[in-house]
């Protein structure tokens, strides 16, 4: 199952990267003469495989371009959050109690705000854009990784091999990179995968609310928001983007489960 999911995900990434060439039409091409055409009818078969939306744009093309947005933001955010979190966790817990407390208190304050609420507010203040979404979702995601790193440090700090290494003259940096970091990395990969799933959900939620990537740029969340008005009249407007989100997040979650079983069953997300 994990392998299947991983291949689905890989295929999606490839598709997302190649979206501009793969998409049969431009994502922004409007033509009100052909608005709201259902898929698989004589009007659309072959040309607009998944139908057209309320402005005559091709649903399939918009979904492909939307994949770029979601995957770009999701992967970039995790790529920022993981190193940031690990660094803060290592740094805080390695150098004594006071710094550790400070880092953990900051985490407590940040966690007092439900994540979506935090994201909504900060993105609104900074202004919705791809860059700001990546920054906010990235920076706000540091806590789970910091906790992992911290727990590893606290577990290993008293162990004999650390004392032995120190006795042999190893500096702090060396101890951290050679001994502590490798153990943390496998857990980070697992947590990062689940975090990616969550980030994709949060990004699509923000887009749904109108605080994500702005129209007319296609995002899955935005397409669902548009499709709300046409819930049964033009079901293809929201079913396909919704299915896209679901498939992607499921695939990421399956890959996460698979990685967890393979790498580190202790992790609980």
């Amino acid at each position: 199952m994990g392998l299947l999911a991983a291949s689905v995900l890989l295929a999606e990434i490839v598709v997302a990267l190649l979206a501009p060439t793969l998409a049969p039409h431009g994502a922004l091409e409007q033509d009100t003469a052909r608005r709201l055409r259902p898929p698989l009818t004589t009007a659309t078969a072959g040309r607009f495989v998944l139908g057209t939306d309320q402005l005559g744009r091709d649903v399939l093309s918009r979904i492909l371009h939307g994949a770029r947005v979601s995957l770009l933001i999701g992967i970039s955010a995790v790529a920022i959050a993981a190193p940031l979190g690990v660094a803060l966790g290592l740094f805080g817990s390695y150098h004594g109690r006071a710094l550790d407390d400070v880092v953990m208190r900051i985490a407590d304050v940040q966690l007092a705000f439900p994540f979506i609420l935090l994201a909504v507010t900060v993105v609104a203040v900074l202004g919705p854009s791809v860059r700001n979404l990546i920054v906010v979702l990235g920076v706000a995601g540091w806590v789970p990784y910091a906790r992992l790193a911290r727990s590893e440090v606290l577990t290993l700090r008293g162990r004999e091999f650390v004392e032995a290494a120190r006795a042999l003259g190893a500096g702090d940096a060396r101890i951290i990179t050679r001994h502590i970091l490798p153990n943390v990395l496998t857990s980070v990969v697992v947590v990062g995968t689940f975090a990616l799933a969550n980030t994709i959900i949060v990004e699509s939620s923000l887009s749904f609310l109108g605080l994500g990537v702005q129209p007319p740029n296609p995002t899955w969340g935005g397409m669902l928001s548009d499709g709300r008005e046409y819930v049964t009249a033009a079901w293809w407007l929201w079913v396909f983007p919704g299915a896209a989100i679901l498939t992607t997040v499921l695939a990421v979650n399956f890959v996460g489960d698979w990685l967890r079983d393979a790498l580190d069953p202790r992790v609980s997300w």
Partner: protein
Amino acid sequence: MMSWRYVGRRVAQTALILVGVTLAVFWVVRLSGDPVLLMLPADASQQDIQRLREALGFDRPVHVQLWRFVEHVATGDFGTSLRFQEPALPLVLERLPSTVLLAFAALSLSTALAIPLGVASAVRRDSVWDRAAMGVALLGQSMPIFCTGILLITVFSVGLDLFPSSGSGTLGHLVLPAAALGFVSIGRLTRLVRGGMLEVLGQDYVRTARAKGLAERSVVYRHALRNCLLPVLTIVGLELGSTLGGAVVTEMVFAWPGVGRLIVSAIFARDYPLVQAAVFVVATMFVVVNLAVDLLYALVDPRVHYG
């Protein structure tokens, strides 16, 4: 067992967190530079900007602003909503019960479903039931709330005309939003109950109960289940955070008149005094409930000594 020292420590920690929350709420409006520019439309004139700046006290030095903010917060004064021209805090508190009701309904629904699902999964481990339950759990965690919401509206509201799709007022109005919001938590909770039950079912006292000849149902429910409820209490406390966050989206999908919807519409109206008040209230409520759950857990769990 719980010691007063533990209570004192947790309360002090909570107080510290609340101070941090106050600072964060003060600071968030200043993240992009001038907060006054944030609150006015792009075409505002220089006079309007200056007038608002003075009215809200943003022309004072930052440390003065901070002190005034803290003073005001301590007395419950979050300024005036720019859009409604009324005090911000009462506007938030007015809508808070709706959100609490929604969150409570959602969590009750998910717990009520998760317990039997988790128990059935654990008892019939690796069977079709187990896999189906785990599948549903994973589905819940993989679908964004607005997606679940729109699906529910399509099927139950527009399609079958069983429940209204927006607004509030009757119990019927609560069903779909609570279901959408709760669907996410069902996954995590079911997995937790299942895990806890599996662990407990393998233990000695369960074998003893079976050896005594007790009916299987009695063994499962009276002896094993009671011991998994404790972690469920904690997780409900943990799920509260994501439920509150999810309420923001749910309220927008179903036009539920709660704090979440207030925050989003206030944001689009650039009504940041109201946004500040609402965010502060939600965070404070969450932190205080967490404290209560922690203390309750320490009180109820006979196994661990909290020093």
